[in-house]
Structure formats: C-alpha cells, structure tokens
C-alpha cells in the first residue's frame, strides 16, 4: 500500500485528474439542465453521487493494469505475504487517491448546488462510507477484467450494475436529509454494505488476481 501511495504521490496528475473530472461533471449539469436554485438543490445530491461514482470508475483500470503489465502483480502472488494483505492495501490506496479527495471536495460542489449545510454534511458522510465500497467492488471487477478483450467497456458492464445499490443508498441519504426525513437508515445500510464488502471482497480480489496471473 505504501508503495502505491508513493507512486501516486510522485505522479499526482492522476489523482488530480480524477478530482478535476468530478468537478467538471458536476458543473456540466447546471449548464445542461438549467440553473434554477430549487432544481439544483433537488438534483444536487444525486448529481454529486453520480459524479463520484464515475470518477471512481474511471480510476479503476489503472488499479492493476501497470502492475500486471510489468509483472509485479505476479511477484505479489508469489510473495509470502497473504493475498488479503496486499489486495486490501491496493484497494485502500485506490480509495485514498480517488474516493477520499472526492469526499473532501463534495461540500464545495454541494455549495454550487445550493445545498443546506446539514445536507452537505450528510452527503459527505454518505460519500465517506460509500466510496470505499465502490473501490472494493470496482477493485474486484478490475482484477477480473485484467487482460480481457474489450477493456473499458467490459469493466463498465461488470462494475456499474454492482455500483447501483451504493448509488441508491448514498444519494438516498442526502435526499432524505434534504426532504426532512432521517438519513440514518440509508447510512446504516451503506455501513452494512461497507462491512460486508470489506470482509468478503479483498479475498475475492486476491482470488481474481490469482486467476489473472495463472
């Protein structure tokens, strides 16, 4: 994990690109749909979530591709360290360079959409819990699609349907807060999703990488 972070730190353009993409997508909607304040406040939470989801998705192909190409992935599977360890490490590194910056930036984007402060807080909280799940699910799909024909499109077909529940609950939390309901059920479900996927998916990522390098 520290190696991945170091690599990301030395080439910060990729993380910056992810964040810039997120900000751009979020800014396209007011321009395309119209800038009435009520409309923006209504669609804001959903747009931010879709933007975060797409940004996390676009960062996926790079998660394993370079290590697969230069053989370090194979070295990792041969190393004495358990697959669970380095798989979790790589996913955590992916989240730190994609999910975390988006979470930090989301209140700023939310302000552009005229969301109220407590909605902003719930939105950021839902992103904080939800984006790691995206990294975990996406990591498993990226590992499965290593070396497959049809690269990016295939990855989209695999990952995006699995992202759907996270999107629903994530956007639902901020939505509920904005309409005066409690966001707690949505956040609890997201948290349950995070725990379940944190337990199961690093193992699946390890298995998928093993299949890929065999």
């Amino acid at each position, binding site marked *: 994990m520290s190696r991945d972070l170091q690599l990301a730190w030395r080439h910060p353009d990729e993380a910056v690109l992810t964040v810039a993409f997120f900000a751009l997508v979020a800014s396209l909607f007011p321009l395309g749909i119209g800038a009435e304040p009520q409309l923006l406040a209504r669609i804001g939470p959903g747009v931010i979530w879709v933007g975060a989801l797409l940004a996390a998705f676009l960062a996926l192909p790079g998660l394993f591709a370079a290590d697969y190409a230069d053989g370090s992935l194979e070295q990792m599977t041969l190393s004495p360290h358990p697959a669970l360890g380095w798989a979790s490490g790589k996913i955590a590194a992916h989240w730190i360079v994609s999910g975390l910056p988006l979470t930090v930036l989301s209140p700023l984007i939310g302000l552009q959409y005229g969301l109220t402060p407590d909605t902003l807080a719930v939105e950021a909280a839902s992103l904080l819990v939800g984006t790691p799940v995206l990294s975990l699910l996406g990591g498993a799909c990226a590992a499965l699609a290593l070396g497959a*024909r049809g690269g990016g499109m295939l990855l989209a077909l695999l990952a995006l349907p*699995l992202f*759907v*529940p996270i999107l629903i609950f994530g956007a639902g939390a901020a939505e509920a807060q904005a309409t005066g309901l409690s966001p707690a059920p949505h956040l609890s479900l997201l948290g349950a999703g995070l725990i379940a996927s944190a337990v199961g998916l690093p193992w*699946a990522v390890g298995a998928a990488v093993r299949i890929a390098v065999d």
Partner: protein
Amino acid sequence: MNWFYFSSPSTFYGLAGRLAPPSFILAAVLAAAGLYLGLGVAPTDAQQGAVYRVIFIHVPTAWMSMFLYFVMACYCALTLVFNTRLSAMMARAIAPTGAMFTFVALWTGAFWGRPTWGTYWVWDARLTSELVLLFLYFGYMALANAFEDPRRGDRASALLAIIGVVNLPIIYFSVQWWNTLHQGSSVSFKGTSMHVTMLAGMLVMSFSAWMYAIGATLVRVRAVILERERRAQWVRDLGAA
C-alpha cells in the same frame, strides 16, 4: 454406482442428447396445458379484469430468472473449488437462458404495468434489482468470452457470478424490505390468496419453463462441449462416424 460417471464431457454429451428432446416435449405439453388453464379456465380477476393473465408468463419467468442464476452460481462454485470442466460449461450454457427469462419477466411486467399501474416502468426496488440481474447475466457472458484461454474465462466469470449472488436475496425480499409499487407475493407455502385454477395454471407454466430451461441448457451445453473438446479423439470419431 459411479457418481462421477457423467462428470466427464464425453459421457455427459450423450446423456444430454438423450435428455433434451423429452424435456422439450414435456415443456410444450405443459405449456399447452398451462395456457389452456390460464387463458381458458381461470376466472377473470375482479379488480384487474383479463389483464392479470400475463402472470402466467410473468411469474414463472421471474422465478426461473432467479433460480437459474442460483443454479449457475452453484456450477460456478464447483468450477472454482474443484476445477471441474463440465460445471463451467454448464454455467455457460445456463446463462443465455437465464438472461432470456429475465428479459421476458421485465418485458411482460412492463406490459402488465402499463394498464394496471399506468406506466411501463418505475424505478421500484424489485424492478431495479431485476434489471441489475439482467446486467449481471450480460456481464457474466461478456467476461466468460473475453479471454483467449477459455479456462481463464471460466474461472474469472465464475468469481463474478458468485459475487453477483448478493443480488438474489435483494430481488426476492425487495417487496418486503421496501414499500414500493410492485405487490408482494400471493403464493406461499402456507397457502395462497388466489383462485385455485389460477394457481394451477401458474404452477403448470412454471414446470413448463423449467423443462424448457433444462432442454435449452442441455442442447447448448452439447454445443459448448463439442467446441471445447474439438481436438479430443472422441469428438473426431463422432465427426468421422
């Protein structure tokens, strides 16, 4: 008795060839009986009129869409755990039929929803999760065929299918967990809230769908076996004969 006799593609090829035609015949007979019961005998519903009769297609296909995914995932688990060849071929053979049933369930649901709910599609929990199931089938098939080495496609797609199993309980319980437009089930092991001929028609149609799924899977698995084993001696002998 050797339980593993038919786990070899060459022996299963013959068995599948013998089992497929009776399955199709049974499917056709049951479908004729089920449609007669459903369209001719079953009484018209007091609230929905004749529109409800779409359930004779909709419910069996929806059941099969989930059940086939479960069967496919079981074959996938066998593939990953025991590294068997035939189980992966069976999983590949099931997927298109499962996707077809999922699509028909969504399609007939849309045609039922138009006169009853007033809309073809709503973003209801059950409809959304069933749509996700359709994309899982598509993703499985795409991933299985995305590699030069078919064995790698088998194992990668098997893992994907197993991850996707999470979706099945979501579909099944969605009408209880979320209070949305799609109504709950009228059938349970404790009894039913339906007229008895309606239930009979639906069950007969379900068995018909089941038989069709078995027949279609067996025919397809024969094609997969031939394609995979085309360099094996027994397939060459088959071609020469």
